[in-house]
C-alpha cells in the first residue's frame, strides 16, 4: 500500500506527464501559440547568447591567419590565380552552376551555434529588419547551408541542411535527373532515397545542385553536395545516393541569405 507521500508524488508526476504530453501534441499538430512563445523567448535570450559569444566564442584568429596566408599566396601567383579563375568559369559554364545573380542577398554573421546537443541550427545577426523571411535559403560560396527557420526583428535561426526535417529538391548535374535529398543528423551525409533509376550512372564525387523547380523554396543551381556513396535501393530498379554537403557546416562564420521567395506553382516535397 502506498504511503500518503508516495501517493501524492505519483499524482503530481501523473499531472506533469499529462501536461507535457498535451503540450507535445499541441506542438506537433501546429496549433496554438507555441511557435510565437518560442520566437519571443529566442528574441529575449538572444543578447544572452551574444554575451557568451563575445566572452568565449568565435575566435576567428586562425581563420584570419589562414586567409592572410591565402591572400599572400594568391598575390604571389597572379598568373596561377587567373588560370584558376578561368578554369572555374569554364567549369561553371559547363555545369551551369553559377549562383543565381539576380536574387537579392543579405550577408550575415553567425552569432551562435545550436545550444542543444540535438540541434542542427545556427543563429545569425540579421532578421526581419534586413528582409529575411521564414524558408529563405541560406548559402555560402561553397553551397547550400540551410533554410531560415524562424525570424526575430534582428536575428534569425537557420536550420541546417543536415537536419532531417529539411528536404531539398536536387538535380544530378551529369544526368539531369531530379530527386529529393534530406539530412540525417550531425556529421552524417545527406540521403537521396530511392532517387534514380538503376540505369542512371552516378559516380563518386558527382555534383548535385538544387533543382529549383516551380514552387520550390530554393532557386536552381546552388551546389548541395557531392556523391560519396551509391548503393542499390530495396527496389532493384532504383538506387540510393549519399551526399557530402558542399558547404563546410562545421566552420560557419559568414553566410548569405538569399531573399528568394518561391515562384507560384505546384508544391514540392521541399521544406
Amino acid at each position: 500500500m502506498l504511503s500518503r507521500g508516495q501517493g501524492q508524488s505519483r499524482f503530481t508526476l501523473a499531472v506533469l506527464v499529462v501536461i507535457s504530453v498535451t503540450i507535445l501534441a499541441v506542438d506537433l499538430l501546429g496549433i496554438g501559440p507555441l511557435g510565437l512563445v518560442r520566437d519571443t523567448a529566442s528574441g529575449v535570450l538572444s543578447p544572452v547568447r551574444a554575451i557568451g559569444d563575445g566572452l568565449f566564442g568565435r575566435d576567428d584568429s586562425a581563420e584570419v591567419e589562414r586567409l592572410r596566408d591565402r591572400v599572400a599566396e594568391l598575390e604571389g601567383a597572379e598568373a596561377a590565380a587567373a588560370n584558376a579563375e578561368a578554369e572555374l568559369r569554364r567549369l561553371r559554364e559547363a555545369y551551369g552552376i553559377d549562383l543565381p545573380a539576380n536574387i537579392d542577398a543579405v550577408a550575415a554573421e553567425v552569432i551562435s551555434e545550436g545550444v542543444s546537443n540535438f540541434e542542427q541550427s545556427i543563429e545569425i545577426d540579421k532578421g526581419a529588419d534586413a528582409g529575411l523571411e521564414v524558408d529563405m535559403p541560406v548559402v555560402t560560396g561553397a553551397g547550400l547551408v540551410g533554410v531560415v527557420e524562424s525570424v526575430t526583428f534582428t536575428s534569425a535561426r537557420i536550420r541546417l541542411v543536415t537536419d532531417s526535417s529539411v528536404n531539398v529538391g536536387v538535380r544530378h548535374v551529369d544526368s539531369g535527373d531530379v530527386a529529393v535529398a534530406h539530412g540525417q543528423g550531425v556529421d552524417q551525409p545527406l540521403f537521396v532515397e530511392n532517387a534514380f533509376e538503376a540505369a542512371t550512372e552516378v559516380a563518386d564525387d558527382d555534383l548535385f545542385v538544387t533543382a529549383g523547380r516551380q514552387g520550390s523554396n530554393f532557386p536552381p543551381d546552388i551546389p548541395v553536395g557531392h556523391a560519396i556513396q551509391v548503393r542499390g535501393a530495396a527496389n532493384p530498379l532504383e538506387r540510393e545516393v549519399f551526399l557530402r554537403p558542399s558547404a563546410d557546416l562545421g566552420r560557419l562564420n559568414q553566410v548569405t541569405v538569399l531573399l528568394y521567395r518561391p515562384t507560384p506553382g505546384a508544391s514540392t516535397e521541399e521544406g
Partner: protein
Amino acid sequence: MTATVLRTAVVLVTALVIQIAVAPWVTIAGVQVDLLLLVGLAAGLAGGPERGARVGFVAGILWDLVVAGPFGLSALTYGLAGYFVGSAQRSVVGPTWWAPIPGAGLAAGAAVIFYAGVGVLLGYTEWLSGQTLKVAAVVGLTAALLVLPALRILAWTEGEPLGLRLPSRPPRRGSFAPRRGRRRSVTTGFRR
C-alpha cells in the same frame, strides 16, 4: 515556501543563462553539459521524487523554449528523470553521501536516451545514431561530476546554508549505534 520557490527560480534562470551563454563553448568531444537536467536531478536527489518532478518539469519547459526540438519533450524527460532519481535514491540506494554521483550519472544518461528515443518516435529519425550514445555518455559523466555542488545549491533553495562542508565520515563497519551528537551530512541534503 515562497523563499524556496524564489530561490529555485533564481537557480533555474541562472542555469539557463549559463547553459545558453557558456555551455556551447565548453564541450567534451563536442557535447555540452546539460545543466537544466542536472538541476532537475539534483532537486530529486535533495528533495525527493515530487520536488524532482516539479523542478525537472519547469527546467524542461525553460529548455523547450530555447531549443528547436519537440516542445514539451524536455519537460517530460526532465520531470520523469527528477522523479525517478529521487525515488531510487530514497527507496533503493539509501542516503549515502556518494550515492548521488553514480545515480545522477546513470539517470542523466538514461534521460538523454529517453529524450532521443521519444524524438525518434516523433519523427526526429536522425537522433537514432551513435551520436546519441556519445551525448548520453558525456552528459552522464558531467552530471556525475557536478552533482555534489548542485546538491548544495538545491539544498540552499530549501533553506540550508550555502557554505561548503565536507561530507561526514560514514559509520564504522559493524557499528550499529548512532553516535551521539554526530552531525548529519548536509552535502547531499538528506534528512536521516
